[in-house]
């Protein structure tokens, strides 16, 4: 006896009845709740100011691409975007380098104080960052007084922000990677030692490549976390250094500070500029990104 797939499906549908349709309705409703605000923002980014305020759901008579140009140039979104790229590229690289070095030593070498240092790092996971904000501001200010390097790592510098990002990303990075390094086999490294490889060489040429899946997950986690950071730049890059601002800070200030004479069309264009790249990158790498972000919770 043969039954076609369509018949099976038909039979299922009959048996399931309304419940299955209700499930679908619930899922579609949430999809709409997620997509519509994003699509609406994108639509508004092509409208003139009059069109935005005369009706929330009208289409623009002509697509106003100049909104995007104004946001990029006059509202400095291009500058903020570039700043975010520079800061996150450096800070994620630094986080991964220092984090994996510390995690490797702490997970694979026995020495006095190992446990204490590991706990010191991991304890950072439990502290609310708001407790540290005030002293952190003065720490960075004081770092700015250092001779020679001070001018690169004080307040209102990208260097200062990068170092702070790295330091605050270390607890999770060390915690996750230490657990990962512990799961790796020891045989390969031992063979390399027998062949006379140095500790440093074994780490960079053998252990790091072996830890690749873990490294990828934490890198994604850190890139997103640092790209989306708002609180720390708000404290460390003041209004006197607008040319240093990162994307989140810049766009938030367009809407909070501008008030009545704000350029609303440009604001929507700026929002779209911040949202679209993230959605596109996420859609392309969704598997890795979902895995990277949930990895911490599943450990």
């Amino acid at each position, binding site marked *: 006896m043969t039954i076609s797939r369509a018949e099976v499906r038909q039979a*299922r549908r009959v*048996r*399931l009845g309304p*419940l299955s349709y209700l*499930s679908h309705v619930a899922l579609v409703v*949430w*999809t709409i709740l*997620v997509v*519509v*605000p*994003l699509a*609406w923002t994108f639509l*508004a980014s092509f409208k003139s100011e009059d069109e935005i*305020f005369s*009706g*929330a*759901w009208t289409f623009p008579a002509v697509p106003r691409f100049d909104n995007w140009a104004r946001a990029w140039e006059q509202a400095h979104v291009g500058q903020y975007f570039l700043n975010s790229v520079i800061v996150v590229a450096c800070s994620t690289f630094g986080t991964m380098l*220092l*984090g994996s070095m*510390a995690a*490797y*030593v702490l997970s694979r*070498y026995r*020495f006095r104080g190992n446990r204490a*240092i590991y706990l010191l790092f991991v304890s950072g996971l*439990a*502290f*609310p960052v*708001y*407790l*540290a*904000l*005030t*002293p*952190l*501001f003065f*720490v960075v200010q004081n*770092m700015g007084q250092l001779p020679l390097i001070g001018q690169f790592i004080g307040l209102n510098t990208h260097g200062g922000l990068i170092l702070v990002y790295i*330091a605050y990303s*270390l607890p999770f990075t060390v915690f996750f990677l230490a657990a990962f390094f512990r799961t790796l086999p020891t045989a390969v490294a031992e063979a390399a030692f027998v062949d006379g490889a140095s500790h*440093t060489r074994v780490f960079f040429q053998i252990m790091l490549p072996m830890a690749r899946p873990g490294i990828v997950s934490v890198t994604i986690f850190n890139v*997103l976390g640092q790209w*989306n950071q708002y*609180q720390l730049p708000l404290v460390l890059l003041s209004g006197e250094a607008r040319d240093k601002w990162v994307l*989140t800070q810049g766009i*938030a200030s367009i809407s*909070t500070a501008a008030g009545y004479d704000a350029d*609303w069309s440009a604001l929507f264009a700026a*929002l779209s500029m*911040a*949202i679209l790249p*993230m*959605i596109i*990158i*996420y859609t392309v790498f969704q598997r890795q*990104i979902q895995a990277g*972000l*949930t990895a911490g*919770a*599943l450990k």
Partner: protein
Amino acid sequence: MTHGRTRFIIGFLAFPVLLYLVYVISPYAQAFYIAMTNWRGVNANPQFVGLENFRRLLDDAVFWKAVWHNLLLLILLPVGTITIALFFAYLLNVGGGGRGVGGIRGSGFYKVVFFFPQVLAVAIIAVLFQQVFRPDRGGMLNGPLMALGIEPIGFLSNPDIALWSVLGVLIWQAVGFYVVLFSAGMASIPKEMYEAAQIDGAGRAAMFFRVTLPLLWDTVQVGWVYLGIAALDVFAVVWVMTAEQGGPDHSTTVIAAEIYRNAFDYFKFGYASAMGVVLFFFTIGFAVLALRLSRRERIEY
């Protein structure tokens, strides 16, 4: 093999540990001391005042409002997010219906879309929803209402509603992450469990409460702790989206916003740090309590 071992360990640890001590540990340690000084203004000379700041906090009505809002969010954000996320994760992975168990058609698509808000910055989402909630014809929600001749809703301007708007945005952003997290947990539950339950005549609701939820309990517990800590750390949505940064009339303010306001708008560094210490104890207290209360015998399968 021991050649250069000590040098290697010190070389690899020195810089990360130094950076961490300077930027993370020392600020936290200082915060506890600053909380006991009357430090005001960037160049002032702070004096030790003991627990004076904490005593003043007791009489600070705005601070208590902030605490109350954090506690409300601490309960409502996890409950709302976990309920919605469990419902969707179950539909997507188990409740698809048909003989046996399987996800609903298109479950991959839903998981991708639901996750969208998670990759966006909270500050960006806050600006976006400020526009969505606009009280005029330009608002995404109020525009159609006004077109129909209905009074616009003061999502952000009505003190009775504003906190609910904040909660809505927080849940909107969080759900996708937990759908994916719970889906991963549900995928590791063996299919035979459901099939056995089905043979025993369990419906979909019974299967959820008798099979899925008990076996997923560990993951739900992790989600609970995450969301609770997120609720205590709410800042950007309130600071960027709401009127008067925590208003109107302090109706949406939270502890983190008051810390920032006191430290960087009023320059009351001692007082702000005292608030930070209170937040610290809330966070630790919550984490301990959550892990205690939800401890259950782990079910092996």
